[in-house]
């Protein structure tokens, strides 16, 4: 409990991470409470397309006259859940395998690297097409698993490099000489040193997963969702020609803004996480 209080104290004291926290809380509320507050109506209302923001339509309407803000709210649940899960799976597998590989070395390292390199060299697109022909995704967990299937190898290699570099440092050598246990070395000494890297990787993977989910959808692996932020962006570009329909600018920039804000909030928050979890930064 004490640790938790300390964690939030550090987060709140760090201005950037505090702003990040607020942004993330807003997005979490948007994804959890939002859909119950704002009812989605996707019926075409062509005469009211591209309306400017008003009390009735906070971010105006899209190319078919449907409320842009409410679409963003309903899309956020799927986007955040799939993004978070995909980033979690990627981070879990990548960090675990990278740490084991870097720390243990030898044949196990060679074996893990062989599999990692194999995944890095196999192009994902044809595999996803084959998968699309065989089955379709029914839930956010399998959606996230598919998204993370090709993102863990890069992280594994990066974590392995970090661990190899760290394990030769004096403080780790001293730990080993002092006969400290492996779990202690991993979780108390090594992990805090790569937390910031992992946090940023988590955010980047999440961003990649959100935009990548459009690709998965357009391959037919997952049901098409017009409220997915990436899909909204895709539709906005195709319907407005990007820049050829000034009426659609708000519709075009709304998902961009959401993605950017979410990313910004995550990066700011990660900044505080780094400080909270890395004892060396706390002095």
């Amino acid at each position, binding site marked *: 409990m004490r640790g938790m209080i300390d964690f939030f104290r550090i987060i709140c004291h760090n201005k950037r991470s505090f702003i990040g926290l607020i942004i993330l809380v807003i997005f979490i509320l948007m994804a959890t409470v939002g859909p119950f507050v704002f009812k989605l109506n*996707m*019926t*075409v209302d*062509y005469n009211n*397309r*591209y309306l400017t923001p008003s009390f009735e339509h906070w971010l105006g309407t899209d*190319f*078919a006259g449907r409320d842009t803000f409410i679409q963003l709210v309903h899309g956020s649940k799927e986007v955040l859940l799939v993004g978070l899960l995909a980033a979690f799976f990627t981070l879990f597998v990548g960090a675990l395998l990278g740490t084991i590989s870097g720390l243990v070395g030898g044949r196990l390292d060679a074996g893990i690297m062989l599999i990692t390199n194999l995944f890095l060299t196999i192009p994902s697109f044809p595999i996803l*097409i084959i998968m*699309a*022909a065989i089955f*379709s995704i029914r839930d956010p967990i399998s959606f996230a698993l598919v998204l993370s299937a090709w993102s863990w190898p890069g992280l594994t290699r990066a974590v392995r490099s970090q661990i190899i570099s760290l394990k030769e440092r004096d403080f780790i050598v001293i730990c080993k000489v002092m006969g400290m246990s492996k779990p202690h070395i991993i979780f108390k000494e090594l992990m805090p040193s790569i937390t910031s890297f992992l946090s940023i990787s988590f955010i980047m993977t999440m961003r990649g997963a959100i935009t990548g989910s459009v690709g998965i*959808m*357009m*391959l*037919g692996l997952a*049901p*098409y969702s*017009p409220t997915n932020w990436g899909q909204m962006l895709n*539709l906005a*570009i*195709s*319907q*407005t*020609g*990007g*820049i*050829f*329909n*000034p*009426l*659609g600018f708000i519709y075009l920039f709304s998902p961009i803004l959401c993605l950017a804000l979410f990313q910004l909030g995550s990066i700011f928050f990660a900044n505080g996480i780094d400080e909270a979890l890395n004892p060396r930064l706390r002095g």
Partner: protein
Amino acid sequence: MRARKLKLLLLSFVLVATVVLNGCTEDNTKVFRDLGGWPKPPLFQGNPFASGGVGQASQYTFEGLFQIVRSTDKIYKRLAESVEHKGNETIIKIRPGVTWQDGKPFTSKDVWSYYMLNNGVEITKHLTSIEIVDDTTITFKWQEPSPFTEMKDLFLAQDQQATIPYHLYGKYIDKVDELLKQAKKTDDPNKKGPFGLEITDKLRKDIDKNWQDFLTAGPKMPVGTGPFIVKKVTASDMILEKNENYWKVENIHFDRIFIKNPGSDSSGLALLKSGKIDTYPGTPPRDILENMLATNKDLVHYRMFDPATIGMVFNLDKPPFDNQKFRQAVVYALDRTKIREVGNYYGQEADVSMTGMPQSELTKWITPENRETMTKFTYNPDKAGELLTELGWKKGADGNWADPSGTTPNFIIGVSGGWLQAVNSAQIAAEQMTKFGLPTKLLAVDGSVYYNNSTKDKGAYHMSVDWVDVSWGFMFPWNSLRNFYWGGIGNMAHLPKFKDGPDKGKLNMKLPGPDGQVVDIEKTLQSMPYLQKDEERKDAIFKLAWITNENAYGVGFFQNTTGYFENVKTIKGWPREDEFEKYDRSLPVPTEPDDIDAVSEINFGFGGITYFVEGRLSPRE
């Protein structure tokens, strides 16, 4: 002070020199600026049949004996000087003095070469042989029974016969001629191949290998007989120069064609908006179209019907879509106005389910009296509910329908993901079905697996969105009807077919027609090209259209409206000039026959470069 003067002088010199040099590079030749795609060098080559072809250069470089305007069936003579139908023979006289772009004469042997090598084209299934009479005369001998005269013309006009010059590809042409001579004539319709020959598996293999070898051969640049010669190709630009030896060179008012490869729709629109190109195909979403016209006052947009409908076919192998009433209920439940508004604002909605022919063609081929006998399937959710209730379905408290066993369905619509116009339409349809109480999800599938998913075994989707009622090629409705019943759309609908026996693979559909008499769909379709009387043809068309509509095998969302932007400041000769002001340069689909012809022909996809060859277009001075 002196140094400053020197600097000023130098700067002025650089400025003047830049302006002068720029002026020098300004091309004073008469240029038409087009856009399109082609295989990027080093993949670009001159064989139009090789992978990727020659792209946008094709229509400027190659031509046929005729030019058909695909949306009106109007046929212009090109390399053919005259056509004579005599019994079961068609004798074609080739224009004398026509040469290939490398200077060699174009003769009847080149026409024969085209059909020998490209023997899979449709007309060969109706011919016994093609015979060279002399250098400028060639005879097409038809099988008995032979197609009616207009059909013969359409078969001939579909092909671009001046694409396989014998002097360049003789080796492969002689080889295939030798192989075809080994095949025996047959009267068995199941074994009949090109020219009434039975092509054994061994022969087929050898012919295919020869074709593959041919695809890898050919000159670096295309060699056709057309009015322009490809001179330079890069990844982003193509330059063609006027063929001074063209047989109708006096009609060609441009010295050069510049073609840009914009890479994306947005880049293409940017080129159009900034006046860097003279033409742009398609009808973008309404707001983009209006913005383009508002920001570039030199542009005019012409709209024209595409002889194709975007719609959805039901998978008859997946219950409850095997039930006619259920299918009709779904058609009634869809508000096609809303689908059309999003899919193609300028498109045309149908009042029928689908008929196997585009909506715009119904009045041409079906009399008003007969049209009245066809059930109207306009938006009527109450009627849809009634039909479901008749079938024993019940609407639950959650607003969803449940079948007689109490199960609420979860339907899937499949669509090719890369085709956003169809994806948007399909999404609205899924939304409407869900709202009506039939929960439906959309799967936007990669184009490479979509068709296979939709057609294999029982099919992966309950409904597939695609081009239905498609009449590309020519407008005589046999074309669109066979596209549905015999083509890919029919396969997506999983129409009943014989699984074995002598008729294996053929349609097993004998259904009551408008007069209550049973109509064998397969036999009716087979007979259509041979019906010599117009009345017989119209009767067959009506019967098939009526059956297709009543059985509601699918639903046409809207007939597509395509179009063309043209720059009227740089180029003159475009049609309907007197109406630019009236319609504020956004010209609606024409209704007058002359206007329909004129507007159809500006579409390169419909009428090739008819406007160039007929001498209608020229640069503004």
